[in-house]
């Protein structure tokens, strides 16, 4: 099975071959490195930019104005924070121009902790991203969704932020990408750049097929009846694990992968909460003015009298950063025991 990095690479290849993607660019995105997570190796239209995030986003905006399709990368979302004004422009161009100029661009960036990235390779961007009206925001938790969401993002005529959970970039999925050879090694031999001299290397791409995960649609990863857990990105494997633990104890936890943060799949979330009466939203961005609070707030508004327990949010501590030492990182972002503890707590609540 492909890793998420390979899946993204294949979606971008599909994009440049079939969807008119003209430019895939950012710091170290082109040859020889092909991206710090190898997600842009071997692509025809991938190129290295100057070390200048503002320049990267600005160039993407200009390409969008010209009607071209591009995918721009910010190497780590930790370094996207000097471009918020430009992202706001990305989100308001159609609106300010009275519908005359759309902004068909994709900006992708790795997010989250989990790789011992210390203060500046552990930031999250989901709460921030949901404060950028005009953008669509997606975040896959497995390679197939990454493939399908990226293709959907490229096709979308609006600006789309594609958040890559960096701790999952090397994790393999459980489903084949349409066109992917079933042998992992074969895929590797075809599309992974070799160690050492790459100047003569060319990838051999599998015959990929279009596969779209519609933006705005979540997915029930595990059905259950006692409690709903809404999450996205890296928090998935943890939530699934936690849910399994409770299944063994005879409880039934429903796990929802939001996949899209904006627009979000309220119908699915709402349906699930109506079934279970209890909900936990998990993410790793800082907890104050957090997107999970929006979802919890909405759940409270719409289901106040149906809820069996307070809608709960488990997120990153409201700290200036995530420390390098494992003791620090673990105390700062949700980990398995935290999730289990929250679930147990909510299940124990008696209305």
């Amino acid at each position, binding site marked *: 099975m492909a890793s998420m990095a390979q899946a993204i690479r294949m979606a971008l290849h599909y994009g440049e071959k079939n969807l008119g993607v*003209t*430019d895939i660019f950012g710091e170290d995105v082109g040859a020889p490195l092909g991206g710090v997570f190898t997600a842009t190796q071997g692509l025809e239209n991938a190129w290295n*930019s*100057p070390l*200048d995030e*503002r*320049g990267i*986003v*600005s*160039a*993407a*905006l*200009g*390409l*969008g*104005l*010209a*009607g*071209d399709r591009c995918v721009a990368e910010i190497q780590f979302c930790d370094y996207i924070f000097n471009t918020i*004004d*430009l992202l706001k*422009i990305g989100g308001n*161009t*159609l*609106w*300010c*121009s*009275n*519908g*005359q*100029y*759309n902004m068909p661009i994709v900006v992708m960036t790795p997010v989250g902790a989990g790789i011992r990235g210390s203060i500046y390779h552990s930031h999250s961007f989901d709460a921030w991203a949901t404060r950028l*009206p*005009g953008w*669509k925001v997606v975040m896959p938790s497995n390679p197939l969704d990454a493939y399908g969401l990226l293709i959907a993002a490229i096709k979308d*005529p*609006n600006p789309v932020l594609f958040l890559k959970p960096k701790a999952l970039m090397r994790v393999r999925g459980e489903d084949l990408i349409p066109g992917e050879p079933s042998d992992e090694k074969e895929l590797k031999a075809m599309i992974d750049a070799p160690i050492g001299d790459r100047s003569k290397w060319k990838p051999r791409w599998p015959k990929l097929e279009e596969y779209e995960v519609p933006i*705005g649609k979540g997915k029930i990863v595990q059905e259950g009846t006692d409690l709903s857990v809404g999450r996205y990105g890296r928090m998935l494997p943890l939530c699934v694990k936690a849910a399994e633990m409770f299944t063994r104890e005879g409880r039934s936890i429903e796990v929802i992968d939001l996949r899209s943060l*904006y*627009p*979000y*799949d*309220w*119908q699915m979330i709402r349906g699930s909460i109506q079934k279970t009466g209890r909900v936990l939203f998990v993410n790793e961005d800082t907890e104050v003015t957090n997107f999970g609070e929006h979802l919890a707030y*909405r759940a409270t508004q719409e289901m106040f009298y149906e809820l069996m327990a307070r809608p709960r949010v488990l997120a990153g501590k409201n700290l200036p950063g995530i420390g390098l030492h494992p003791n620090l990182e673990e105390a700062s972002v949700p980990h398995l025991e935290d999730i289990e503890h929250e679930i147990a707590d909510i299940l124990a609540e008696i209305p």
Partner: protein
Amino acid sequence: MRGSMSKAKTGKTNAKAKAMKATVGKAGVGKTKSKAAAPKTGAVKGAGGKDRALGLLPKELVLNMFDLMVKSRVLEERLIKVYKTGDAFFWIGAPGEEAFGVPLGLLVKKGQGPSHDYLHLHYRGTPTLIAMGMPMIDSIRLIMNRATDRSTGGRNFANHYCFPEMNVVPVGSPIEVQYGMAVGTAIAQRRRKMKGEESGVSIVTGGDAGTAEGDFASALIWASRPGAELPVYLTVQNNKWGISTGFDSQHGEKYIADRGKAFGMRTNVVNGNDPIESYFAISQDLEYIRKNTKPVLTEFAVSRLYGHSSASGANREAGECPIELFEKRLVDSNYIRSDFKKELWEQYDRESREAAELVRTEAGPTGDTIWDHVYVGNENADWRKF
């Protein structure tokens, strides 16, 4: 340019109103679409006389520039009146930048998409747009934030134009970000050029104070990447002010344009109050960019005649007026009679007043339109309806 220069030397006397409206065949592609029947120039002799620079351009072009400069100024003064009579919340605009803006507008390769020139303007673009044929009423609808305002639908300030059919991308308020976006459209144009396709230049304008923002420097870097040089025309209109702050109090550069030199970039400093000098500079710069697919950075000295914006009163202040200077030259060289400007002025004033009166009767956008155009095709963006 050489072609039109020698042609210019044969320029006819007694230019007719029709001639005034014509475009210069070679250099300019822009056409003025003004519908006003222009008064006669009343010129008795011509071809520049002692003013040799004047004689280097076709007389029709010279007179057309004057006409458009006056028209632009009249429009701006109309906008100020609209503001002062309480029909607008805010004015910002370009009085004092006509001698730069009009030639630019005439020299643009006008049209839609990367095969034409892009215009990344800031909030002083009226002269350029008037030269490109924007009807006055479009500008008035914008400042009066009517539903009929094409550019923004009543959402944004005066001079925040947007006209996709002329590649006028949305003018924004944040200073200097247009330079980075011009890099983006120029990347699209370079790609086409390299494939042998028709392509244009990305033209960007901005003020002097704004060059302190890192985005200006970023554009210099991106425009001059080795082997990937961009067809981008980086211009700066130096009026020596950023609101209340004098250029010389903040900037150690003698010329902003000098900053291009470290990048091996062609640079110029131009008297932007002289439309003839500006015309030649812009024309040659654009020609260089089109031919070499390389950037140019040119600084134009301009005036700020009504202060920064309505926030500082929008009253006439001291300063060299490019129109007065030009008028004097034209009168001295017998291109126009001394009462010509007044007539022209009155005619455009009437046009602008009638437009303002019409716009006053038009409706504003309704509150329920706020969700329009968040996403393409009015796809729902209101979370309450997800």
